[in-house]
């Protein structure tokens, strides 16, 4: 039986939306308040969805301890309580939640082979969320 398991995690980070390819005025027009040079913060909610066969012996798609452990060290340790703009992956890329979602998807896909990664969803605020499924459908 193939099932999908979703797990949610919380991390807090700050960012500033600004592109060097745009003029100061274009940045203001495009990003509005998010262009504040001091940055601003979010409590991001990360939802990771994996899928796989339910193991006949354990009743699990994958061991949650393994998934939690990987996300703690591979994702949360990297982004929690950080200023995203100071991180290497955002040296030349705007740390929008879209881009962050893609980076997190790639980290989990590369580093967690115990189950198939279906999608990553990031809630930036109560009103906005972003999902990325790699090459798959949402």
């Amino acid at each position, binding site marked *: 039986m*193939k*099932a999908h*398991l*979703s797990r949610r995690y919380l991390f807090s980070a700050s960012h500033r939306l600004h592109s060097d390819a745009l003029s100061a005025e274009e940045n203001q027009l495009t990003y509005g308040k998010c262009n504040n040079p001091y940055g601003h913060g979010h409590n991001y909610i990360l939802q990771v969805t994996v899928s796989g066969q*339910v193991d006949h012996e354990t*009743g699990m*798609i994958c061991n949650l301890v393994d998934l939690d452990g990987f996300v703690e060290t591979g994702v949360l340790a990297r982004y929690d309580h950080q200023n995203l703009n100071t991180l290497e992956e955002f040296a030349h890329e705007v740390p929008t939640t879209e881009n962050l979602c893609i980076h997190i998807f790639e980290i989990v896909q590369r580093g967690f082979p115990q189950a198939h990664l279906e999608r990553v969803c990031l809630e930036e605020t109560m009103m906005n969320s972003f999902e990325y499924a790699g090459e798959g459908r949402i």
Partner: protein
Amino acid sequence: MLYLTRKVEFAASHYYHNPDFTLEENRRIFGKCNNPNGHGHNYLLEVTVKGEVDSRTGFVVDLKQLKEVMNREVLEAMDHRFLNKEVPEFAKQIPTTENIAVVIWERLAGKLERAKLHRIRVYETPDLFVDFYGEV
């Protein structure tokens, strides 16, 4: 095609244990969930059905009928129960969130009039849920 979801909560206890594993394997794989006295959750169940809107009633499914089926097949069987000891399907399989979703699907599929079962979603906690779409 329209999708309708009905939610219901049930409170149950369970523990994770495979009698074919050694005590040490059980403890290592299942950790705190292996406590033989069990532990509990307020499970949240979302049943999603799909179908076309009936032109006479405006319904995808008769909600009264869906509610009766959910009460009979899920709540009466699992609410305020110790899943390992009181639900027949869990005599021989571990009541993980995955298996609970599959068992609920099997109990509901084919019992709905007009609409088809699309997805069973079981939240064990607000941060952990399983979706089952009936895929083997």
